[in-house]
């Protein structure tokens, strides 16, 4: 008996488009691993926030600073955008690039509105003199929520480049994989926001 050799990999037609090519599906595994590191980034920021929340020095505390209105609106926008990106992936599975484009654009619009509101919120705090120089609490707040906001902003720019690629190349295993990882990223940011809303805003108003 001679040595058995592995067959060279081929396409898997029985799997969804983004998983059909072995190399592209490996990249999705890699993206999950990236998300692990991002979870840890936010975990570290949350732990810092928890430690720093009572350390308000001479600045305002969460109770005086936060208002439910903008936070609630931001939550609504981001949760809806998670739903729309879900539909975009549904459209991708159905093989309809037009639907993917439309729902991704809707997602980005909601995301942009979210970022706009957050910048507005930050600016209004800063106008009251509540800058991160004032206290450890404010430093932790701006960096935790700001890191999330920076992630959303990066996601928007990323998705714009994906839309251009989709328009040029249509749905291929490569573009499908990219859109799929973008949707993972977007859902992840949504989950993080749920924690921010709970830990920062809800618990801040109750305590």
């Amino acid at each position: 008996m001679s040595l058995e050799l592995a067959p060279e990999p081929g396409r898997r037609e029985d799997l969804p488009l983004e998983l059909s090519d072995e190399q592209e599906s490996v990249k999705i595994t890699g993206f999950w691993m990236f998300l692990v590191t991002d979870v840890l980034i936010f975990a570290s920021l949350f732990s810092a926030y928890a430690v720093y929340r009572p350390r308000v020095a001479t600045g305002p505390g969460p109770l005086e600073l936060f208002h439910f209105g903008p936070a609630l609106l931001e939550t609504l926008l981001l949760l809806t955008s998670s739903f729309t990106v879900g539909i975009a992936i549904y459209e991708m599975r159905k093989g309809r690039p037009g639907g993917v484009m439309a729902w991704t654009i809707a997602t980005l619009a909601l995301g942009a509105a979210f970022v706009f509101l957050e910048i507005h919120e930050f600016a209004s705090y800063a106008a009251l003199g509540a800058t991160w120089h004032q206290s450890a609490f404010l430093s932790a707040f701006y960096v935790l929520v700001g890191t999330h906001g920076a992630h959303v902003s990066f996601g928007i720019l990323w998705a714009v480049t994906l839309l251009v690629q989709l328009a040029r190349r249509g749905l291929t295993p490569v573009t499908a994989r990219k859109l799929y990882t973008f949707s993972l990223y977007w859902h992840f940011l949504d989950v993080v926001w749920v924690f921010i809303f709970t830990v920062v805003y809800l618990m801040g108003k109750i305590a």
Partner: protein
Amino acid sequence: MPPFARYLLHTLFPPDVLRPTEVGADVLILATGVIIMVVMTRRHKWRHLWTEWLTTVDHKKIAVMYLIAAIAMLFRGGVDALMIRTNLALPGSPVISASEYNAVFTTHGTIMIFFMAMPFIFALFNAVIPLMIGSRDVAFPRLNAMSFWLFAFGALLFNMSFVIGGSPNAGWTAYPPLTERVFNPGPGENFYFLSLLIAGIGTTMTGINFVVTSLRMRAPGMTLMKMPMFVWSALATSTLILFAFPPLTVALLMSLIDRLFGSSFFTLGHGGMPMMYVNLFWLFGHPEVYIVVLPAFGIFSEVVPTFSRKRLFGYETMVLSIVAIMLLAYGTWVHHFFTMGAGPTVNAFFGLSTMLIAIPTGVKIFNWIFTMWGGRIRTTVAMLYQLAFIPTFVVGGASGIMLATIPADYQFHNSYFLVAHFHNVLIGGTLFGLLSGMYYWWPKMFGRKLDERQGKWAFWLFLTGFWITFGPQYLLGLKGMTRRMYTYPLGYGWHTLNVISTLGAFVMGAGFLVLVYNIVYSMRNGERDLTGDPWDGRTLEWALPSPAPEYNFARIPVVYERDAYWDMKEKGQTLANSLTVRDVHDLELPRNSSLPFFLGLSFFVVGFGMVFSWWIIAGLGFAGVAACLVAVGFDYRGPKRVDAAFIRGTEVALGRLRA
């Protein structure tokens, strides 16, 4: 002089970079640079350098670049060490000033951990992991190149600090308030935070790469429990990287914005808390200890079976213990600051969790001994490092248990006892492991063996030098000498031991010189490895010619047994005698890319601009980063096709295929 020029001169060349030692080093750097430039230009090698090395995505070449960087950094870290020891040789007669000393021990620690141990580990991962698991490359070859260039430019940024601007000087841990801007206004600590952030991104990406490589790229038939132990150690190490580097990133980022943008995380005023930095840093720092030692464990688990001609004893328990260490590593960080006053309950928990790690580690030590038991042992250089590792590491581990005993730690803390302990495990564990791996896999990387006789000289100098250096330091610690003191008065009874320790350091330095001579000599005169299997190896990398061709495997074999290549040899079915012309087909390989290099360069520009708060330069760097990322997104060039005729020709030339 116009004010702008005066500002520039003052910022780039403050008094502390114009001392004779620094200027001397600058002259040497310049001279070396000019010589390299001239030689490269004379021999018309620039194009070759660019196309074959700087833009490569081949894991084998990236491994070589990591190795060169690691050895260069070992040199710089070693020179720092000799400066430290020279200063302490005699009481009350420092050669360098306190401020220079602060810079030197800071760069020694930082370089040895981040810019020597880490790239050395990645060099060996890159060199052999894909070959061991029967793969043509890592999971993400271009990302792999990006990791390398981020590391390289991070290292460049860090090493620039003593030439322009001034070195970091707050210890390798960079605790606040030593790093707080009001107390430490120069750019030195900015260099530290930025270069570690940049290199840290690269390391995180390497972690992702090797987790996915070992999970998804294995040859058919190689189940997880048939993976070579070195691959297991890579998987465990990379998983630790994924979990450990993010807290470091956060800690560094917070310190940096404290310094540059006036936030109040770790400041003494405004409710800031320096202890939070210490927690976050060691939340990374303790797993980091295992990040650098687990690969050494993996290397020994390959070296011992090969040079004992026996299969590894207790493979399953080896896997279990490596996973146990990986999990426990994440629950021990507080033992680095028992004295900070977290309270007896917290301290007791972390003391116990620290001692628990001794159990899986002990299992591994016994397994290596039982593997050697009754084996036919060959004392090659690789094996000698392993034989020296066991007693050295056991002593280091035992002193670690002493440090984990909390009441005693209040005495040991920050003394030379601690310094001796961690050098004992880092040199006796990590460095011996890495050197063992280097001697073992050198023929696979370069096609020639390292000369064994010279290697043994280097080994014995290193080992004896090591014990002469660090043995006395345990005693110095018990006599009350604390770390990071730049000089000490006569009359404490520290004199003799310090002289001995310094002598030992120079013996180690001599060992390093022999090692470098060994490498240079063997590049030309080393014994050629024509079989691809110089040590009678057991794992798949030895099935390939040395060095392996660009595509590694013309065909990937199906694996049945744990020691896959040993199994093939026993059945007489090696790749060398089983391939036929019909088996060879066209292949696709990842295409070279210049983007990783430019991405690293852009990050370097960002870092450089931010160190001096020159925002226009930093902004240009950020634009470069963004441009590189967009270019990556729009890079739809397919893989490079390698046609069957070429592969057949190569395999025939290598004697692997009958024409």
